[in-house]
């Protein structure tokens, strides 16, 4: 009997494992949207031609499926809470612009409404314009940051904004860098002939001109500087609002930084913060998982359709700062040597020329409104 029981037990045990140890197939319903609509743009209280850009996001993966394509010939409207509407004419590359004198008003709310050529309609949630506390002044200082290279620290310039945060309201700030001009200093007296020169390869051939040119760029590194006042509500602020990396060229003379001091809504702040997190991914185990961030655009035809991007409205204060080399405590050394006429900066030694295209020469004349003094 005992033996029979043992055999019975073994069968039961085997049966248990046979019936319970199999793995059920679990089908995960993956979202594989096809070229999601992407909406980028914002309007501010400064009268100018504001831009909204529409595109189709390309899939990311091992297979290249083409670039992000612009969405052309859509109908783009901006409506305020009084239903005053502005039609944004199409220009090119999916960019739609407001009239030159268009400006948002503090206290109003705005919707962005888009109708695509195929009739699909999208609308943003309401975005309110809150006034931005005025910036009293802007200062700057050179900063040294340890890097992976023990021998070379990263040098950059911090832009510091000084302003009073109001106590009786919740504020969300966003500081956006704009294309900025700076003086490029070259060393044409160090010019050498190209190595292919028939008689004097790499021979010294000093040039008389030109040492100082002007160049416009988007200040690197691109980053999103946004902050809520939850930890400093009502306090006077001395806060870093931008950072510009010293690449050895930018701070050889004077750098004119243009940027915007903006107010944003809580939702826009959240979106920008998440965007910043995604942009700062380094591939470490502490990174948040890559994700599509939900914006504030909604499809009226198919509510389940995902739309990327965020339309926000801001009160704006334009900020312009001249960063002078002589005011920096330190800078990257050695600074970059440009052994060429500075006007050839974009095409040194013809390296960026291609058939049918020659990069433009830089101007030795400063921008008309250049006024570092």
């Amino acid at each position, binding site marked *: 009997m*005992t033996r029979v*029981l043992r055999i019975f*037990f073994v069968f*039961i*045990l085997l049966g*248990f494992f046979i019936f*319970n140890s199999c793995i059920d197939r679990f089908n995960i319903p993956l979202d594989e949207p096809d070229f999601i609509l992407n909406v980028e743009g914002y309007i501010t209280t400064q009268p100018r031609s504001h831009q909204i850009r529409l595109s189709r996001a390309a899939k990311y993966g091992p297979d290249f499926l083409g670039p992000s394509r612009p969405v052309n010939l859509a*109908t783009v*409207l901006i*409506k305020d809470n*009084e*239903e*005053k*509407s502005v*039609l944004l004419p199409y220009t090119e590359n999916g960019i739609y612009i407001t009239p030159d004198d268009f400006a948002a008003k503090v206290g109003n709310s705005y*919707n962005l*409404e888009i109708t695509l050529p195929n009739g699909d*309609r999208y*609308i*943003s*949630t*309401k975005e309110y314009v809150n006034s931005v506390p005025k910036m009293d002044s802007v200062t700057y200082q050179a900063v040294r940051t340890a890097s992976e290279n023990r021998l070379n620290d990263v040098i950059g310039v911090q832009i510091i904004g000084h302003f009073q945060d109001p106590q009786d309201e919740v504020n969300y700030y966003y500081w956006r860098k704009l294309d900025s001009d700076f003086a490029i200093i070259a060393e044409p007296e160090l010019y050498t002939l190209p190595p292919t020169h028939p008689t004097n390869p790499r021979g010294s051939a000093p040039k008389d001109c030109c040492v100082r040119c002007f160049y416009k760029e988007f200040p690197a590194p691109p980053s999103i500087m946004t902050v809520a006042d939850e930890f400093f509500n009502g306090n006077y602020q001395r806060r870093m609002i931008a950072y510009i990396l010293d690449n050895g060229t930018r701070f050889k003379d004077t750098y004119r930084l243009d940027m915007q001091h903006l107010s944003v809504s809580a939702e826009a702040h959240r979106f920008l913060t998440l965007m910043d997190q995604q942009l700062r991914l380094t591939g470490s185990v502490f990174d948040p998982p890559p994700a599509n961030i939900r914006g504030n655009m*909604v*499809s*009226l035809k198919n*509510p*389940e359709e995902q739309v990327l991007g965020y339309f926000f409205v801001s009160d704006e204060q334009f900020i312009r700062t001249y960063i002078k080399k002589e005011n920096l405590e330190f800078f990257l050394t050695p600074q970059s040597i440009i052994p060429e006429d500075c006007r050839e900066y974009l095409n040194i030694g013809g390296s960026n020329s291609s058939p049918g295209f020659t990069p433009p020469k830089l101007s030795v004349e400063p921008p008309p409104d250049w006024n570092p003094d």
Partner: protein
Amino acid sequence: MKRIYFYIVLVLTLLTFSCEEERAEGFNILTEEIVNVSGERVILMGRIIAFQNIPMQDHGFYISSNESFNQPIIHSMGQIDRPGRFAGEISGLDLGVTYFAKAFVVRDGETLFGNTLTFQTLGAVFDDFQPRTQFPGEIITITGRNFADDVEVFFGDQKAEIVQFEFGFRLRVRVPSFNNVVQVPIRVITRGNELSVDFPFNYVTGKYTLLEANLDEFRLVDNVFFQKGNRFFVGLGMNVNRTSSNFLWEYKPTEGLWKKEIFPGSTHRRSANSGTGYFGGGFQDTNFPPEVYNDSYWYYDGDDFVRIPNPPFEFAESFGFMAQGQFYIAGGTLGIGSNVYRYNPETSLWQIRPNLPFNVDSRMLHFVHNDKLYWIDMDKVLREYDLFTAQSRVISEYPSPFIEDFSDTGGTSIVMGDKVYIGLYNNAREFWELDMRDYVWTRKTIFPGITRARNAGIFQAEGKIYFLRTPDFESVMEFWEFDPDNL
């Protein structure tokens, strides 16, 4: 031993069958946001909050003008399985009414509602229409807010055809036929509301009459013209066959005849001409360049030509004009194109004045109003220049297109009170009225005559405008009368 087996079997049995039972599906329905409200439309957003997919037979929104949701508008969006937000657009609402809205779902035959939000639809507004003056059958654009799809437009009592209805704020409307009333109010009716603006619509006016009076033998170009009371004078310059004209012709509207008169000096071609009797400079021959400068300056006092001193500078193809009773000459093609000199008849002296901010010459149209100089440059920009403070500003832009080297020169103008009549550029038919009080341009009837012609003189008498034109390919000049307010 038996007990051990028993316990093992018991544990295995419990392990197998003691799994957690499936929890009942739970969810919340939320009326999340009033996304956008217009006059007769609202976009609402709702959200189903759940941790798993739940099949719903229906979802959507209830809207009602009362809080108890009696006789609601039900916006049904059909079945849905997934939680998340959903948006619905409901139109056909009444203007300016407070509504209550709530999201709903139907689950197992039971209708469940979210929270209630309120909103007020906006009223319709009629903001503007452009252009303010138009021909019958042409299009004007009406802008406003919250026009519903039942919108109608009336010009006076005549209903207009709506050619295009865009986005609830813009209407393109065809102007109805002319009903013998030049000014009519425009009314917009939408959802039973009648809307209007403070300013009327104007049918394009202006009546051209080709007069019989002609200058015998001559087709004048580069000439002088001026007016003394109701006496019009035109002459000097040259004939188109490049023979010199040492004559002037006088015309009185009451007589309807051009009479030839002898001029005591030599001709003044492309001279500085004020249109008031002061003129001078320019060229005294009809040659091609180099041309011979004529340094004499004249004033016609109504009876005789009186020679006045010449300025210390040579002027040809310049602006000539009167301001505060003094004769000004500005710009031109000889020397500096921004020089300004002023002749004071009381002292008989010329005086240099501050330069204009831009070079000017007689290819540009100019006029004087309230002692300020105005000119339209080759880029259509109308500038105002204060002769006493030397300040200038851009005030408007000529509304018709210019074609470079084709229709951007040769225009004419005349000031009548606060209105200036401007146009008839080379190869163009447009004639405009500019109200100097608000700088509003009003289109006038298209010129029916030959456009390949040059303006030789413009005058006014008793509310009518008279102008002489020299056609390029016709044997005689044309003399036209233009009544700006008639049809």
